[in-house]
């Protein structure tokens, strides 16, 4: 019994320390000192992020139940950064009358789900994996229902928990069948044992749809727009960036590590799913009038692009995927930051309300336009390079038609991203959103995103660092 080996799980332990400190602070601090709760939380979490951003040597503990590879540090850092930005963006909302009593819970629950994602990423065993994924999704439902006195949020929470439990039921069924045919749940052992017999294929499909659900791929996406619309905006961005990002990465590692022998089959599945995800989501996105639903469909189609990195199953695919994730995160968070501040201050959430935003809030609309251009993949913004890399990764593996379809879809997506740009810059409005004075933390978050969108495209260091680790799974 080597308990001290657990001490090697630096990232998880340090996150737990943050969680515990915040929990104790929230419970025992008086009214007065609670005023500093949010700054303290953010500072603590930033320290945690900074402390854990340097990759170290790979190791595994608990008999291979927990894996660490350097690439995970990058992925976890990306998730940390995303969470940090969301914390920064949610300040004003949390200080509102309705939610101020629950801000302690907000941080606790968010960080718990983040912890779940950590575990999910590092797991080397299906049990630990399932616990991780459940930790990442069950408390998430309570976050979705966070504005519990509003009908929409409550409904979104219920929809999320029901869909999520249904998905995890199917997933668990799949795992039980995997266990039934192989007798082990360790990823390392499984890779040699699974070789695509019918029962394994069935088990695989049942298992993997649980992840597809989390990534919200068509046709497992139906919950997404409803939940995105109903959830508090900052939670929506958390769902669309952090939760989705971790799931995509895990999907990649599982496909390679556990289901490597079934590569033909899962490539076939992904092939179909990528096409319908991108296309259908684009078709839906065109007609949206609610900003959050719009972003939901946009993020579904972005998930399709992310899977292009997975389908290649190569080292370039992996590094392009992580890079794409990074860029997608900054772009999406910039948009969500703007959307959340506008919703928070004015309650306006329709795209029509964004008409002539530029005339009253030039900076917010500039940030938003930049991020939209980045998502649409227009050079020289970061989004272009990430798309280019992920397309080349798929291209190199011979998915020509798939890349072509994805490329054509970028035109459709350009069309609807331009709808928003046009609304902000070109359309007229008798009652535009009034001029918003954003708080410091939001400003910081938006500056971080903007700088990142501009710089990640401008300097190759980031990509090279990621590519250096190559196939670190």
């Amino acid at each position, binding site marked *: 019994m080597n308990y001290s080996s657990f001490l090697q799980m630096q990232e998880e332990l340090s996150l737990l320390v943050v969680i515990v400190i915040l929990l104790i602070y929230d419970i025992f601090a008086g009214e007065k000192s609670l005023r500093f709760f949010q700054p303290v939380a953010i500072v603590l979490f930033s320290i945690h992020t900074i402390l854990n951003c340097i990759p170290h040597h790979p190791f595994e503990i608990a008999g291979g139940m927990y894996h660490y590879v350097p690439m995970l540090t990058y992925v976890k850092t990306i998730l940390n950064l995303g969470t940090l930005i969301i914390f920064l963006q949610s300040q004003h909302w949390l200080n509102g009358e309705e939610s101020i009593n629950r801000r302690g819970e907000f941080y606790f629950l968010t960080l718990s789900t983040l912890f779940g994602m950590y575990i999910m990423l590092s797991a080397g065993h299906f*049990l630990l994996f399932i616990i991780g994924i459940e930790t990442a999704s069950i408390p998430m439902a309570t976050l979705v229902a966070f504005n*519990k006195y509003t009908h929409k949020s409550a409904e979104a929470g219920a929809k999320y928990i029901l869909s999520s439990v*249904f998905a995890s039921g199917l997933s668990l*069924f799949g795992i039980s069948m995997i266990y039934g045919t192989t007798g082990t749940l360790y990823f390392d052992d499984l890779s040699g044992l699974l070789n695509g017999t019918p029962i394994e294929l069935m088990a695989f499909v049942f298992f993997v749809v649980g992840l597809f659900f989390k990534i919200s791929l068509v046709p497992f996406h139906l919950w997404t*727009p*409803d939940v995105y619309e109903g959830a508090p905006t900052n939670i929506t961005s958390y769902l669309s960036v952090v939760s989705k990002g971790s799931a995509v990465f895990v999907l990649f590692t599982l496909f390679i590590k556990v289901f490597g022998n079934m590569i033909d089959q899962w490539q076939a599945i992904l092939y179909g799913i990528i096409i319908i995800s991108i296309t259908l989501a684009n078709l839906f996105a065109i*007609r949206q009038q609610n900003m959050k639903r719009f972003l939901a469909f946009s993020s579904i189609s972005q998930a399709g692009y992310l899977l292009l990195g997975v389908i290649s199953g190569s080292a370039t695919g992996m590094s392009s995927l992580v890079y794409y994730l990074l860029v997608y995160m900054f772009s999406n968070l910039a948009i969500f930051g703007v959307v959340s501040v506008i919703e928070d201050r004015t309650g306006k959430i329709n795209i029509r309300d964004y008409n002539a935003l530029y005339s009253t809030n030039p900076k917010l609309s500039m940030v938003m336009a930049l991020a939209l251009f980045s998502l649409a993949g227009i050079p020289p913004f970061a989004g272009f390079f990430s798309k280019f890399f992920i397309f080349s990764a798929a291209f190199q593996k011979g998915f020509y038609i798939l890349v072509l379809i994805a490329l054509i879809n970028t035109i459709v997506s350009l069309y609807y991203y331009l709808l928003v740009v046009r609304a902000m810059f070109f359309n007229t409005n008798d009652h535009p959103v009034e001029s918003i004075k954003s708080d410091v933390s939001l400003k910081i978050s938006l500056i971080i995103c903007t700088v990142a969108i501009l710089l990640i495209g401008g300097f190759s260091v980031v990509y090279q660092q990621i590519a250096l680790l190559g196939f670190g799974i």
Partner: protein
Amino acid sequence: MGEFFSKLFSGTIPLEAYIVVSLIMFFSGIYGFLSRKSLLMILISIELILNSIDINFAVFNRYLYPGNMEGFFFALFTIAISACETAVAIAIVINIYRNLNNVEVDSMTELREPSANETEIKEVNE
């Protein structure tokens, strides 16, 4: 006929029998989830789904891989997970009840694709 019965009652209970039982439980759960209107009924169906998976794990472990206790522990932890899910789900259902004054799944349709007609699209897209 007699042979069939003697076969039924001798030797070990076949693995398939357990699987059939668990499948019945699983798909009754699925049926309940897909068809019942009350949110609480849906939760009950979920319990059935999760419970049937526990049986799978326990049986596979006992019959096929008795060497170690993977399935046993998986079942054990699944019970804990389903307890968590139920707790949270029930809290959310009660919250729904507060907001809607009922627990019917059909009344949760405020979040949906707006029934836009063509003119609205034109308005947006010009």
